[in-house]
């Protein structure tokens, strides 16, 4: 099997290398790629969409249809992980076979087997994952104070996508990563209290619906799909500013969708669909 793999790899590599002989030299300003279509994006981006970051204007406006399907790809990955891993509550064994509690003050841990119902004064005890990770004061406290600022940075990245590198995807992933950090530093149950499964499962369709809905709104207002000029009728500023606002609304939708999906995939992967003990 290894020799077959090697032969295929060498063959494909030779074919690819054979083609690079005719490539334009790297970084040459007169190469067809940088003289045919992209000069218009660079020169007209400010004129037509009032967005300095050309990548964001091409991403959300000139080729906005691509990005809508890209957000749908992320959304379908989230639904796929839910469909594959989630164990419906009705089918799970009634009582978890083994639970662990730790006494807050003394740090002693109790393992209760056989799922017996035990009445513990819960304010003194806290439930701990079965594969027990040592309680680490530093990690918990640092993450507790760090997460709000990560989320603030994530919102900044979404909002500032027009002027600086960033935008819906990067901001959404950072927001999702903050919830994942909460779940990794503390435990999954605390993260579920902050963002339940239903919220993250509704965030992703609502986010992508904001994107497709804006496009459909432009359709209803008489223009082509995803033609943000139509929003000039609803939003202040001329058609150019309407495009800039349209791009911003779409970026917010993408941010919501990506955040909801990343958290949703993580919860299903980390807890094998049972949503009780995770990474």
């Amino acid at each position, binding site marked *: 099997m290894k020799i077959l793999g090697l032969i295929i790899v060498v063959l494909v590599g030779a*074919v*690819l290398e*054979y*083609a690079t*002989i*005719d*490539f*334009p030299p790297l970084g040459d300003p007169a*190469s*067809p*790629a*940088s*003289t*045919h*279509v*992209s000069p*218009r*994006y660079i020169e007209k981006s400010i004129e037509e969409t009032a967005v300095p970051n050309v990548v964001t204007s091409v991403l959300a*406006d*000139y*080729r*906005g*249809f*691509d990005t*809508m*399907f*890209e957000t*749908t*790809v992320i*959304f*379908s*990955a989230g*639904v*796929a*992980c*839910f*469909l*594959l891993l*989630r164990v*419906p509550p*009705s089918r799970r064994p009634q009582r978890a076979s083994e639970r662990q509690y730790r006494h807050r003050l003394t740090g002693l841990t109790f393992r209760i087997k056989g799922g017996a119902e035990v009445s513990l004064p819960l304010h003194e005890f806290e439930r701990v994952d079965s594969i027990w990770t040592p309680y680490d004061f530093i990690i918990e406290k640092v993450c507790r104070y760090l997460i709000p600022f990560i989320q603030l940075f994530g919102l900044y990245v979404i909002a500032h996508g027009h002027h600086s590198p960033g935008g819906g995807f990067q901001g959404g992933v950072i927001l999702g990563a903050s919830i994942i950090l909460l779940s990794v530093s503390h435990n999954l149950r605390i993260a579920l209290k902050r963002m339940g499964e*239903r919220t993250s*499962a*509704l965030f*992703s*369709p*609502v986010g*992508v*619906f904001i994107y*497709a*809905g804006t*496009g*459909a709104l432009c*359709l209803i207002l008489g*223009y*082509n*799909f*995803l*033609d*943000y000029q139509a929003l000039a009728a609803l939003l202040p500023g001329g058609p150019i500013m309407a495009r800039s606002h349209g791009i911003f609304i779409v970026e917010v939708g993408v941010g919501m969708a990506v955040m909801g999906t990343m958290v949703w995939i993580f919860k299903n992967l980390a807890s094998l669909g049972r949503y009780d003990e995770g990474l």
Partner: protein
Amino acid sequence: MSAHYPALLVIIPLLASFFISAAGWLRPPWCFPLALTAMGGSLLVSIGLLADVIRGIPDLYWFGGWAPPWGIYYRVDHLNALVLVVISGVGFVNLWAARPTVDRELPEKAGAFYTLYVLFVTGLLGMVVTGDAFNLYVLLEIAAITGYALIALGKGRAPLASLNYIFMGTIGACFYLLGVGYLYIVTGSLNMQDIARLLAPLHGSRVVTVAFVIMMVGVWLKMGFFPLHAWLPNAYTYAPSPVSSLVAPLMTKVMVYVMIRMVMTVFTVDYAFGVLVLNEAVVWLAVIAIVAGSLMALAEKDFKRMLTFIVVAEVGYMVGGFWLGNRSGFTGSVLHIVNDALMTLCLFLAAGSIIHARGESRIQSLQGLFSTMPWTMGALVVGAMSIIGVPPTCGFFSKWYLLLGAVEGGHYGFLAALLFSSLVNVVLFFRIFEIGYFEPMEASHGGASHGHAHGHEAPAMSEAPLGMLVPLWMTALGLIAVGFYTGEIVGRVIRHAIPATMF
């Protein structure tokens, strides 16, 4: 309103999939009706598009209001209008048959299942109608990811088969993306017609040849063309029956369409058949595909797995037909995309209802099916006749054009392969009819049908539920109807799709 048809075609199912996913959490009973309206809506829009195309109204749609080389645009012509109707039709009919199995096996996750189902059909519809090479890659990925997840739902070896499908599918999609990148580095544009215009002076260069080879390998890998078909049999056999009767008829046919679109629109026919002298070799590859597919189908003990090898052989028909390079070969190939989608749907729906009633699909376990499940077997007979190529059904006409093309092209190897595979199909299906009709149900064979002690009395009818029989018989009658309307389809639609330069 009809000016927005190309956009509506994809947006109705896309928006519906978001509502279905939200309804899965808020109003679970609304999921199936929403999915039905989505599929019905896209079916009506695609029929409207076909009517526009026949009336000669070209449908061009600029997304975001930007002109083509800068923005993305949809172009509906004679070739893809037909395929659109087939995809949304198969998606709509199969949704009816999916309901009993989904309600039985995944009651809580029906919302998620229908979301992925509708997104799969949206991905295919978008792939067929798009005019932008990179947009086709994004939609290819949507159809692929939803396909991987739906296939992995099955029992037994389904997750492993789906994982192998992911590896092969990702390599195929990345090769296609690399091919688009090679064209982009040399021409600078992503729009199909723009690339074709800019490629004209470059036909001799190495980059275009390698781009062509990589794209073809990527597309062949995704369609399961013989040497690259290793993932197809396991993936379609172990998938749950509503999924295999959705993916098997559509995925391979749409990839054949993508191959035809790439060769016709981007590389232009005179480059593919004139400059490159590949078409002889590809037809011989197709001959090997047909022969190997048929032989492997003969060797199978499992009924559903046998059908998957017939799909591999059918892919050989379409690829070989197109690469013959003459008008009847092209007509046969495009007509076969339509007919084969219907035939494969009919066979997989019949297999689905047999598995639904019997629980297993080994050929030995199909005893006495004609007495216990007469309706399903009736539809299976119609489907088998169409695969073999018996006149009233549509399978005969596309095979007829392929044979005509083989004779005109002077390619007798392809002709022999077509006849050989038809004979093998006869053996395959009559073996099943023989087991189904003549061998009585042994009393000991409990299964779903409660056989009586003295076997000679006909066992009670344990037919598949009505929800699966109606779509099955709609497809079977559709096979015969499409057979009668072949003259219409070829005359009014496919004839205009043939490029002028094809001799």
